[in-house]
């Protein structure tokens, strides 16, 4: 069942002596057959002892494999060894197999600190599955991630050096990279069990990740000698609690010489008295992106919450109105709103609306039919008459970038209500229609200068048209390059936009109302009604 070769035998004996668990033995024998690790711990022990006993018939090693503490005697296997006492093969090597909760007094693996002994079973898988179920996710697949204490790498290295000597003597070809990592062996075993419990397949790139972590306070100090031998690997960083991150430890281990390591750390590692403690099991579903277009019909509604000095200046916002029904349907923990440009509080967005996308964070439900999405759109539209949403759809993260790309080159159409100081007639407006591709220089408007760099930006007003309302008012329609500040073009912003409408009209002009008529971005695609 377990593919072991004769040349694995000396390695197995040495690891048994050192206090390695059965799965760690498979790892160091480079057994890459996943099903081998999924056998119960007892079965692996049984196979290993049978394998070593076979060799015993010729070599008569004295190895005891104890499958369970205080087991009936028939389970104890005693193996005679003619070479007993010779070299470093101990008279009796014992491995304790723990196949359940009965850990008291059992010896904890010197390498995996119990991770592959006590947490690779149905009991722990059930616990993980229950933690997932408690969060009430609707999932289609899962992937497991494991975080192990950094000192496991130190212990792994120590054990590797321990058998490497032996391996060289026997001239076997085996590299450290061929050893199966604890993480892999753990995932091969537990992931399958959790998958069965939850009745969803394991998928390497699943958006749903279950994170399991372990700590082992007793051996935390194992890493500390590396800080003196490889000080440059351990630079303090702001957001890390300890400098001994797994990455830093792995890097330091790559640098340290075998001699130096052995002078500073016992080979094989010392026996721990406790096993790892599992940490809280956490679940995370990757973001889901929902896109659409919105109209804003209110001049008293900001696009995003308007907060000054921690105080809310206006009730509600476009993003909150759209987000509320989405958050509750997707049962998401939060959202990030983005859109193709934005309008001021007092500006309406009419026409086909403005493209937007909503990233829903850690959604507990992510599968929706087209009809359900349409209902969701309806729910948003029913919730307020200040906004309206169309073309609502689930999109990929990649597709979302289409909304932002080429934003500068896109054109936007506006309609503005203009006041003029001078009394005007229809003929005073005629020249406006003749202005084509007018380039203007805009200094960063004073109203946004506190949060944006000072610069002069060239923008193009492609075309304009005007219709007279009365002797001091007219409607101005503009097609401009995206990013043009329309209000500043009209009132001039202390002469900081040049030329401005005051210059063109040769009178003071002001903007009383502004509407966005269209945002010419062809994304997201239209959704047929």
């Amino acid at each position: 069942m377990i593919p072991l070769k004769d040349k694995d035998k000396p390695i197995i004996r040495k690891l048994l002596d050192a206090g390695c668990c059965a799965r760690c033995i498979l790892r160091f024998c480079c057994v890459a057959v996943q099903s081998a690790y999924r056998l119960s711990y007892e079965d692996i022990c049984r196979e290993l002892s049978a394998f070593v006993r076979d060799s015993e018939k010729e070599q008569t090693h004295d190895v005891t494999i104890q499958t369970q503490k205080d087991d009936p005697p028939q389970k104890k296997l005693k193996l005679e060894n003619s070479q007993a006492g010779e070299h470093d093969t101990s008279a009796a090597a014992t491995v304790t197999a723990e196949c359940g909760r009965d850990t008291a007094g059992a010896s904890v693996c010197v390498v995996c600190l119990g991770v592959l002994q006590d947490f690779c079973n149905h009991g722990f898988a059930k616990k993980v599955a229950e933690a997932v179920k408690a969060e009430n996710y609707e999932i289609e697949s899962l992937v497991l991630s494991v975080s192990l204490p950094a000192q496991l790498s130190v212990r792994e290295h120590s054990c590797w050096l321990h058998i490497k000597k032996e391996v060289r003597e026997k001239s076997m070809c085996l590299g450290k990279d061929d050893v199966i990592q604890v993480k892999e062996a753990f995932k091969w075993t537990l992931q399958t069990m959790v998958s069965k419990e939850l009745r969803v397949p394991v998928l390497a790139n699943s958006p749903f990740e279950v994170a399991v972590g372990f700590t082992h306070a007793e051996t935390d100090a194992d890493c500390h000698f590396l800080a003196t031998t490889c000080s440059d690997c351990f630079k303090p960083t702001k957001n890390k609690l300890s400098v001994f991150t797994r990455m830093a430890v792995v890097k330091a281990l790559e640098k340290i010489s075998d001699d130096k390591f052995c002078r500073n750390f016992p080979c094989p590692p010392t026996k721990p008295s406790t096993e790892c403690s599992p940490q809280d099991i956490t679940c995370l579903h990757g973001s889901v992106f929902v896109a659409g277009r919105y109209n804003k019909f209110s001049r008293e509604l900001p696009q995003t919450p308007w907060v000054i000095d921690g105080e809310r200046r206006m009730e509600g916002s476009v993003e909150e109105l759209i987000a509320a029904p989405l958050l509750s349907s997707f049962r998401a923990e939060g959202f990030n709103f983005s859109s193709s440009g934005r309008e001021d509080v007092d500006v309406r967005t009419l026409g086909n609306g403005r493209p937007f996308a909503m990233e829903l964070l850690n959604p507990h439900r992510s599968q929706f039919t087209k009809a359900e999405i349409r209902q969701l759109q309806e729910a948003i539209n029913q919730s307020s008459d200040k906004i309206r949403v169309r073309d609502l759809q689930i999109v990929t993260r990649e597709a979302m970038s289409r909304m932002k790309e080429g934003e500068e080159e896109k054109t936007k159409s506006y309609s503005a209500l203009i006041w003029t100081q001078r009394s005007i007639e229809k003929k005073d407006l005629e020249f406006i229609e003749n202005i084509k591709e007018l380039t203007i220089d805009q200094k960063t408007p004073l109203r946004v200068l506190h949060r944006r760099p000072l610069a002069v930006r060239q923008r193009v007003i492609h075309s304009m048209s005007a219709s007279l309302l009365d002797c001091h008012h007219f409607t101005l329609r503009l097609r401009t390059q995206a990013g043009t500040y329309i209000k500043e073009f009209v009132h001039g912003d202390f002469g900081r936009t040049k030329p401005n409408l005051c210059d063109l009209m040769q009178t003071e002009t002001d903007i009383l109302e502004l509407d966005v008529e269209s945002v010419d971005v062809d994304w997201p695609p239209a959704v047929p009604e």
Partner: protein
Amino acid sequence: MPQKAPSVIDRYYTRWYKTDMKGKPCEDHCILQHSNRICVITLAESHPILQDGRTIKNITYQISDGCSRLKNKVSGKSKRGGQFLTEFAPLCRITCTDDVEYTVFSCIRGRLLEVNEAILKRPSLLLEKPSTEGYIAVILPKFEESKSITEGLLTRAQYEEVVSKRTNHQPDLC
């Protein structure tokens, strides 16, 4: 049809005044503070330069041999590199055709963001549109000082009172 709404300044700025700057009679300054704390420094309408008949001979932002406000450069969102000004920091000197020279001061503490190069090319702008296109400078007060910088300044009402008392009681001063 809406009536002419309040002007851009009425809508977004608060007007503050400093009268008789540095003890010089009637040399009144106006500070337009935007709701985002940015301040635009202009001459108040009662400033001697704006009184009838005056014309400007020269405007210079070179306030001393070593210091020119024209050399002010700011970069990034945080406006790094801008000259830091205190209340009595001179911004520019204006000479009228009658050879009387006036100094315009910062009036507030803050970082200089920009000066108005347009008035160098067209000094008449200062006379025609003193509170808009004829502005002197744009200053960004420190965030934590955005309220305290106006403590020593007059409100519009206080300013109007000062000006009206002046015309009633001390008409000869200006």
